[in-house]
Structures are given as structure tokens and as C-alpha cells.
């Protein structure tokens, strides 16, 4: 009974303003870091020295308790902001759990004042609940004369320890647990999540921390139920606190259906990407030449093409699943990280270019692209054009595709296949439509001599693609290796000429000689290096660069790119290389970082996986004040880029 009266008398009595004040179980005082009378902003701290075994509470006190209440009296022209809460500690009171502070704690309040205002007294009524086993509401009326106050270093020490930095997290809900994934360059032994919202989490339950390898960690936070769309709070990692905040169910929680829809749209748009366009145009041309033909023939050609596309996507998906099962980090376009593959693609492009230009007709295979009248019944030609279209499409990522493929590759295998099939369906969509409605072909222009001219013209986009691939090849290897590739190109040219010119035995001898020469040269090609490709104009990327820069409050823009990614290269020219963009980045002191994935690099693959991506381009932007970094659009223009980072 005595305790009640003690609590009560303390609560009811109003103390005269002074500094410090003994409140019963604590001593409260006002301190400041104000250095000189000209400062427009500074901090005032409420220092609470609690007796041993007593504690007070954080903004979310946990299962019981109450945060303090501060009522300021200030002169006109002075504004005191809300408290900046220090990182709390857990104060277990089994089976309950509370969050708060023990011992000697400083609560910093930021103060702004008009520069012409007088520096005078600042007063505070501070009501707080202080608890040991039992709880007592106590209060202090404090006053500080700012004109004569001496700066107290404890204020700056408290500010330095505030959890002001945001830490990027990728969280998932599994059953009744929230799994918070985060990265930390230092090894973590203890972590605890203090949730800001009430009624979402089971405070008493243990939060388990596991290391996911490298610098990734996962903290399991038991929830009261599985309904959660958003959370925010402080993540204490060993002795430092970080703000975390995450919306669940956006990019992270993309559903399978959404991923399939994205794949369909992405596949459709892929037709227009620069690396595919020439091959697709040839196919369209071949359909034009069929105008007036038997509908079933058109249908069969269209279906063969669709078959080629679908079976190639299926093969790629299968290959990816198999490679993934070995534990490798892989991504869309990853095959172009191998100079051998780039070399072969170069020769294919070059070969197609030569065939188109010289009007040579082959009996079957790849060369029936833009097929003439004779080979019209050869459906394998249409099939292989489908295959070829997908093969040349591999360096390209269309909008929507990145997110869908990222999802496909990070999900269990059963989700991978449908997404790749959807991608194929989207890609082959227009031809599938043609197969269903062959009569629509009459909407296309009438065939004629113009087709031969156009076909020859399409040799140039093919050769241009070959040139681009040669540059990729050179970046990956060396100038010497490029010369070898060019020699292979020459041999290919001779081979095509021989096949077209000679008949019978000579033709086969020519092909064999070419093949032997090719194998010989390919064997002498160097292995690709594993390093990062440096760029003088940009900062080097590293796995920890984001957390480092966020810790320094430094804005940054990351460009995940590769020489073989034509979308990336286009964006470089149309956005990043523009003077306006360069100037803005310099003006705003944004750190520009390039992660060049031209060569195989496991770290970059992990970096992409953090954003649930497996392919590029990927552009990341962050500036102080943003709770988390933002993913910019995959296809950029100068204006689009500037708008998204302003």
C-alpha cells in the first residue's frame, strides 16, 4: 500500500522548474550541444539517470509500459522537433517482453530557431513511466537557460549512436514468421528487431539469427498472424541500430501469375529489340512472299516457327535449371559471358549477312531465312529461324522480362518452366496469331522485286550485330584473339563461296577444310578472365558498396551493365553518356558506380540476386532520406533517367 501513496504523491506534486531534478527513481536533466549563439539548429537532450534495476520505455513499449511525454515551453521563433529515439534494448519480464532503456540515457530533441530570436530559456514538462518490477509514473519540470548553457559532449555522443541509417532488407513471410534478410560486412553475432507497429509480432518469442553465407543474414521474427503488408522498426545488429522498413508483397512477393504475365508482355516486346529485329524482319518478309498462298501452308510455316521458338526457350529453361542445381549463380544472357559463344554468334551473324548479300540459296537449314519460292515447303527452315531468333535474342532484355526471369530463376524449378514458356509464347505471339488466322497475311504488302532488295539490305543489320559482338569479344579477350576471330570470318566467307560455287565432292572438301580450320582456331582462343572490367569514369562496384555509402549518407547510382548487353549499351548512349546527366550527377554529388558483368563474376550475380534479378540491365538509385534504394526502368532516356533520380 505504501508504494501507491509514494507513486501518487510524486505524480500529483508539481515541482518547480530546475535542472537537474530528482524524480524518485531517476535524475532528469536538460543538456545541449549548442556551441555558439549564432547556431540556427542544435540539439537539446533529456538526460535520464535511472537507478539500478529501473527502466523506461521506447516508442513501442512492448507488452506493457508507456513511452514518455514531453511538453515543451519555448519562445516564439523556436521549434522543438519530436524526439529521435535511441536504439532500445530488450527488457524481458517473462513471459512478457518490453522495449526500453536502462541506466543513463539521453533522449535528443532537435531544436530550430529563427536567427534573430533571443537565446533564452527552454522549459520542459517530462512525464515518464519508470519500472522495475513495479511501475511508477514520475515527472520532471526542467528548464535550461540557453544563453548560459555550456555544451555537453554527452549530447553529441548520443546523436552519434542514434539509429539514423537505413539498412536495406529483403524479407519474406513464411508461415507465422517474418524472415528479415540483410547484409552486413562485419560478422554479426546478435541481432534483434524492434517493431514500431503494435499487434503484429510476438514480442516474447525468440528471434533466431542465421548466417546465409558471405555477409548475408536472416533473422526470424515470429508474428501473431501471417497478415502483414508493411513493417518498420529498428534492427539492432550487435551494438548498432539501423532503421528498417519494408513493404511486402510488391516486387518481392510477385506472384507466379504476375511473373507469367510479365513474361508474356516481355516476350512480345522482345521482337522489337535491336538484336532480334533483323532476324524477325526476315521472317516477316518470308510470310509476305507467301501472300496469296494456300492458307494451310502459311499456317504450317507459322507453327514451325513457333515450334522453333518454344523448343529453344524450353531448352534454355531446362539448361538453366540443370546449371542452377549445381549451385551456380546464373542469369539471362550469361552464355554471352563465354567468348566462345560470342565468337560463334559473331560467325552466325556474319554468315547470315553474307548469304543475304550474295543471294546464295542453300538447300535447307538456317539459310532458308527469307526463303524463296523453291524452299517454301521446307518447314524445317521456319523452325530453325525460330531457333535462331531466340539465340540472337539472348543478349537482349526487354522491359518486364528482367523481373519475370529473375522470378523464374529464384523460384523452385516448377515455376521456372511456365515462365519461360510464357516468354516464348509472348515472343512467338504474332506468328501464332498468323497460324490461327492465315488470311490476315493479305494485310501485308504484296510480294515483288522490292523484297529481294530489302532482303539484301537486311544483310547490314546482321553484319552490324556481328561487329558489335566482335567488340564484346574483344572486351572479353584481347586484340590478338579478335584477329583470330576475324580470320575465322574470312574462312567462313570462303566456305560459303565454295559451297555456292562448287558442286559435289569439292563442296564437301571445302566444308571439311573450313571446319578443321575453325576448330584449330577456336582451340587457341584464350579463356575469359574472371575480373571486373574497370571504367575510369565510374566507381568500382563491390558487394558492400551500398551499405557503405548509405552509412556515409552518400547518394549513389549503380549501373549493372555488360558489353554484351545491347539494352545496357543503348542506355549508356541515350542516357548515361549525355552531358545533362553527367552534369546533374556531378552537381548533386551522386556517386556513380558501374558493375560490369561482361565477364563471369559471382559477386555481381549475388548483387543482382539481392534485387531478385538474374539479368541486366539493372539500375539502382538511392539518396539520403529514401527508406530503400529504387530500381529504375530497364529502358532509359535522358529525361527518364533525370526524372527518376530527381
Amino acid at each position, binding site marked *: 500500500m505504501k*508504494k501507491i501513496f509514494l*507513486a501518487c504523491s510524486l505524480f500529483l506534486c508539481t515541482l518547480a522548474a530546475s535542472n537537474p531534478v530528482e524524480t524518485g527513481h531517476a535524475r532528469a536533466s536538460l543538456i545541449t550541444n549548442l556551441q555558439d549563439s549564432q547556431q540556427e539548429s542544435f540539439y537539446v537532450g533529456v538526460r535520464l539517470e535511472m537507478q539500478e534495476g529501473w527502466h523506461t520505455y521506447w516508442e513501442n513499449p512492448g*507488452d*506493457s509500459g508507456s*513511452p514518455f511525454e514531453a511538453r515543451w515551453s519555448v519562445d516564439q521563433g523556436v521549434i522543438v522537433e519530436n524526439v529521435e529515439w535511441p536504439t532500445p534494448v530488450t527488457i524481458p519480464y517473462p513471459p512478457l517482453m518490453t522495449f526500453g532503456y536502462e541506466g543513463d540515457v539521453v533522449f535528443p530533441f532537435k531544436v530550430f530557431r529563427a536567427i534573430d530570436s533571443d537565446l533564452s530559456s527552454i522549459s520542459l514538462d517530462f512525464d515518464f513511466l519508470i519500472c522495475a*518490477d*513495479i511501475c511508477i509514473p514520475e515527472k520532471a519540470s526542467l528548464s535550461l537557460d540557453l544563453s548560459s548553457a555550456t555544451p555537453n559532449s554527452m549530447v553529441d555522443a548520443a546523436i552519434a549512436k542514434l539509429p539514423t541509417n537505413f539498412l536495406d532488407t529483403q524479407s519474406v513471410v513464411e508461415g507465422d514468421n517474418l524472415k528479415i534478410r540483410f547484409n552486413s560486412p562485419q560478422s554479426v553475432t546478435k541481432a534483434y528487431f524492434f517493431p514500431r507497429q503494435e*499487434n503484429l509480432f*510476438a514480442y516474447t*518469442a525468440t528471434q533466431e539469427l542465421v548466417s546465409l553465407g558471405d555477409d548475408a543474414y536472416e533473422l526470424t521474427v515470429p508474428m501473431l498472424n501471417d497478415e502483414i503488408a508493411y513493417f518498420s522498426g529498428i534492427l539492432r545488429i550487435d551494438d548498432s541500430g539501423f532503421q528498417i522498413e519494408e513493404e511486402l508483397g510488391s516486387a518481392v512477393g510477385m506472384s507466379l501469375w504476375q511473373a507469367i504475365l510479365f513474361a508474356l508482355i516481355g516476350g512480345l516486346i522482345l521482337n522489337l529489340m535491336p538484336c532480334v529485329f533483323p532476324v524477325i524482319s526476315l521472317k516477316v518478309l518470308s510470310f509476305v512472299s507467301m501472300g496469296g498462298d494456300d492458307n494451310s501452308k502459311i499456317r504450317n510455316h507459322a507453327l514451325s516457327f513457333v515450334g522453333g521458338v518454344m523448343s529453344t526457350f524450353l531448352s534454355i529453361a531446362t539448361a538453366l535449371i540443370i546449371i542452377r542445381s549445381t549451385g551456380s549463380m546464373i542469369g539471362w544472357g550469361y552464355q554471352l559471358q563465354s567468348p566462345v559463344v560470342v565468337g560463334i554468334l559473331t560467325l552466325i551473324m556474319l554468315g547470315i549477312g553474307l548469304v543475304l548479300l550474295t543471294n546464295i540459296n542453300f538447300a535447307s537449314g538456317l539459310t532458308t531465312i527469307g526463303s524463296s519460292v523453291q524452299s517454301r515447303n521446307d518447314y524445317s527452315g521456319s523452325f530453325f529461324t525460330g531457333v535462331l531468333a531466340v539465340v540472337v535474342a539472348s543478349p537482349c532484355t526487354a522491359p518486364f522480362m528482367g523481373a519475370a526471369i529473375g522470378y523464374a530463376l529464384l523460384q523452385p524449378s516448377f515455376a521456372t518452366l511456365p515462365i519461360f514458356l510464357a516468354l516464348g509464347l509472348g515472343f512467338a505471339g504474332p506468328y501464332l496469331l498468323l497460324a490461327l488466322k492465315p488470311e490476315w497475311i493479305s494485310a501485308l504488302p504484296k510480294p515483288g522485286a522490292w523484297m529481294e532488295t530489302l532482303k539484301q539490305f537486311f544483310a547490314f543489320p546482321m553484319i552490324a550485330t556481328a561487329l558489335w559482338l566482335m567488340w564484346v569479344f574483344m572486351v572479353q579477350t584481347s586484340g590478338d584473339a579478335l584477329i583470330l576471330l576475324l580470320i575465322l570470318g574470312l574462312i567462313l566467307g570462303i566456305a560459303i563461296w565454295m559451297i555456292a560455287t562448287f558442286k559435289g565432292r569439292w563442296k564437301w572438301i571445302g566444308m571439311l577444310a573450313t571446319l578443321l580450320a575453325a576448330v584449330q582456331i577456336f582451340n587457341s582462343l584464350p579463356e575469359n578472365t574472371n575480373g571486373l572490367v574497370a571504367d575510369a569514369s565510374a566507381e568500382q562496384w563491390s558487394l558492400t558498396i551500398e551499405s557503405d555509402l548509405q552509412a556515409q549518407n552518400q547518394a549513389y547510382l549503380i549501373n549493372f551493365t555488360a558489353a554484351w548487353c545491347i539494352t545496357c549499351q543503348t542506355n549508356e548512349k541515350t542516357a548515361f553518356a549525355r552531358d545533362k546527366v553527367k552534369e546533374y550527377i556531378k552537381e548533386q554529388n551522386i556517386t556513380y558506380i558501374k558493375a560490369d558483368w561482361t565477364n563471369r563474376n559471382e559477386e555481381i550475380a549475388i548483387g543482382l540476386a539481392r534485387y531478385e534479378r538474374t539479368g541486366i540491365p539493372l539500375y539502382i538509385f538511392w539518396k539520403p532520406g529514401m527508406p530503400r534504394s529504387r530500381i529504375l526502368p530497364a529502358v532509359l532516356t535522358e529525361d527518364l533517367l533525370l526524372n527518376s533520380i530527381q
Partner: protein
Amino acid sequence: MKLYLTLITTCILATASYAANIKLQNPSVNAKAPNFTAVNSYGKTIKLSDLIGSPVILEWTNHECPYVFRHYNENNMQNVQKIARDAGVVWLSIISSTPGDQGHVSPDTANALTDSRGASPTHVLLDESGEVGMLYGAKTTPHMYMIDANGILRYKGAIDDIGRGMQFFDASFAEAKNYVSSQIDELLANQSLAINSTTAYGCSVKYKYD
């Protein structure tokens, strides 16, 4: 022999981990209220299932807690009890404080407190072990639960909307929305309540825990 040893060890470990795992349950509203048995301040065993047929209100209390103190000192809790009892509701005041801790009382003190404060609970239950409290997930004093005549839990949470924070000690009970007294009519109609779950505020329940 080895098998027996293993079995015994397993049993001991299982018991140990069970003891360490005692935790608050979190009963769902609009579902059956968990049944319990407890002894009242007159030594009589009270069983929730025997009371069903009338609505039942559970009030977790601790007379030394400053929050509870203010609710009783200003007759706020007594008024709510009266409204509920007049409407035919069974009111159970439950003390889950463990012996030696704040709020734990002997049966006689419990009855003396009821008299001196002019309170009107149907029963004061002494839950020294904390079993009932943990079964309901009672965290604070006060912490309120409303169960309808069919035994369905209709409300869990705070007594009113004053909420956590030091403003409690200055706030007016008259101006606050009392979640219990304002929803008694709906409780009597065995309906789902407009507000059925809130965050309770107050002192921690002083559970036995070792």
C-alpha cells in the same frame, strides 16, 4: 539399459523444454473462449464453462498498479462493473500476480479491497500460478476480455481508448470511449463487436516465472 537411459534423458529434456516454453497464448476473437478453472476469494472453485449462459467479462487487475489505481480511485472501473452487472453480465476480476510480487493479495485482502473500493465483481479469482492469465494472453493491468452467453470471445484489449502513453494520467475518463461499457448491448445480442481487439495498456502482469 542404454535404451532406458536414453528414454529417461529424453523425458527430462522434454520436460525441461516444456517448462521453458510456457508462453502467452493469443486467443482469437469470435472463436470459443478458452475454458479455465480458478479459485475465488471465498475458496470456491469457479469454472468458466459453468458460467456460460450469461455473458462474462474478465478484468485483469493489480490494485498497486498506478493505472489500475487511477481507474478505481476515480470510480471508473466500479461504474463499468455496475453497468455490466445490471445488464446481467458475470464479472470476474482476476489477479495473476505471483506471491511476493506486486498486487498479490490474500483472499481476505481481496475481499477487503472489494468492499473499500465499492467494487462489484461477481468473483475475484486468485490466479497465483498465472495459468489463466497466460491462457488468455493477459499482458497488462487492466486487460479486458468479453465473452458472450454462447462462450464466444468477443473482445480483448484495453478498457478504453486513452491508450498507452503518459497522457493516461491526465486524461478524462468521462471523455474517453470505454470499449467495455459502450459495447455491452452488442455483447448481450451475441454479436460480433464493432471494436473487438485493441492494444491493452498498463503495468505488466506480475507473472510467476523461473
